[in-house]
């Protein structure tokens, strides 16, 4: 590989990424990705071995969701580009803010996730056995 080839590769990368952006790839009509609680539940069960959903709450911006599972398990789902990304957390990592429920995933690159427009009452309804949130 010469410097010229390296420069060519970098130029090609920018052209291709620019093309993907110009073609509006990765976007499907509307901004959000999680349209239904079922979608969040499915994502949690597919990503986390043995996870069985009790209920799911989708944020009103459709960008994040909280899924309660059996045995006190809980998953947070976030929109990640055109896909969803899932993390299992503990209820202690979920707390209420004025925007919604904030989930500290403990993973800096994954980041904290806010499930907008839901509150403690919604969460208790979701997982009635829960006392810690």
């Amino acid at each position, binding site marked *: *590989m010469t410097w010229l*080839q*390296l420069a*060519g*590769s*970098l130029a*090609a*990368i920018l*052209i*291709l*990424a620019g*093309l*993907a*952006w110009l*073609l*509006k*790839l*990765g*976007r*499907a009509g509307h901004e959000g990705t999680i349209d*239904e*609680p*079922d979608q969040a*539940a*499915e994502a949690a*069960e*597919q*990503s986390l*071995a*043995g996870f*069985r*959903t009790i*209920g*799911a*709450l*989708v944020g*009103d911006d459709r960008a994040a969701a909280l899924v309660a599972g059996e045995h006190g398990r809980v998953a947070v789902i*976030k929109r*990640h*580009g*055109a*896909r969803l*990304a*899932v993390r299992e957390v503990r209820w202690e990592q979920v707390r209420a803010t004025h925007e919604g429920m904030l989930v500290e995933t403990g*993973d800096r*690159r*994954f*980041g904290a996730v806010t499930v907008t*427009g*839901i509150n403690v*009452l*919604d969460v*208790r*309804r*979701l*997982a*009635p*056995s*829960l*006392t810690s949130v």
Partner: protein
Amino acid sequence: MELPDPVTYAIPAFVLLVAAEMLVAWAKDRRRYEPKDTLTSLALGTGSTVAGVITGGAVFALAMWVWQFRLFNIGWQWWWFVVAFVLDDFAYYLFHRSAHRVRWFWASHVIHHSSQHYNLSTALRQTWTGFISLAFLFRLPLFLIGFPPAMIFFVAGVNLIYQFWIHTEVIGRMPRWFEAVMNTPSHHRVHHATNARYLDRNYAGVFIVWDKLLGTFEPERDDDAPRYGIVKNLGSFNLIWAAVHEWVGIARDVWTAPGIANKINYMIREPGWSHDGSRDTSATIRARWQQRLELGEHAWKKPTSSSSEADREAAPPRAA
């Protein structure tokens, strides 16, 4: 004998084919590509080429050193290229299988799997740390047999080029005879999938027959569409994190694990292994999935409450 690096000549074709596949995605399903994911994949590919140049000299010197102890003198006739190609592909199979079963090797290979998309740009998503993971070890026996290093590196380049076109959802199935012998988009989609059924399957480079012979083959099923990525998806497009995250994970585990045996196991056992059994490996994931199948339970189907106002009013408040 001086042989060209075939990959260098293939790069312009790679670029054109990625662009063509983007146009297909634009027409059919825009979610097949994600600009940030594509940018990360292509940058990882370029970085991988640079890393290859930096370590290439040392790898070639080692190959030449081993070659002097060769068992046979192998000439430059064309049929030796064919034999070299087939044997090198088997070496690739062994390398690739180890790359999924030994965490030290996986730490490099995971980069190729860390995209949740499956398109031609994913093919270019290659590791930066293959040298540290000792990937070159798997080809050394070929030099010991007597294949000239230049011949092996040439056929290895052709192998890599072959693997480019199979990273696509545009092609469904190839003709039956082709699917039987060769690695195809369908077989390799299985390899990139995280569905329990598909985990740790189809390690082939060019010839799928190695998987069939050694019991690691799984056909793609229309009723189990592949979901791409890794068991614990990164949820980040950060280039550097994609390149090094598993190394950081190894370092953390080795640092905190109790006892020297556990520390070593965190480096050499399969990905997901943990000293207290608190994490999932492909074996535990498959076992739980099978258990669920046998119990006749299906995945989540019941309606769930949403956060919409209508639902909030419908359900009576219930405090814990």
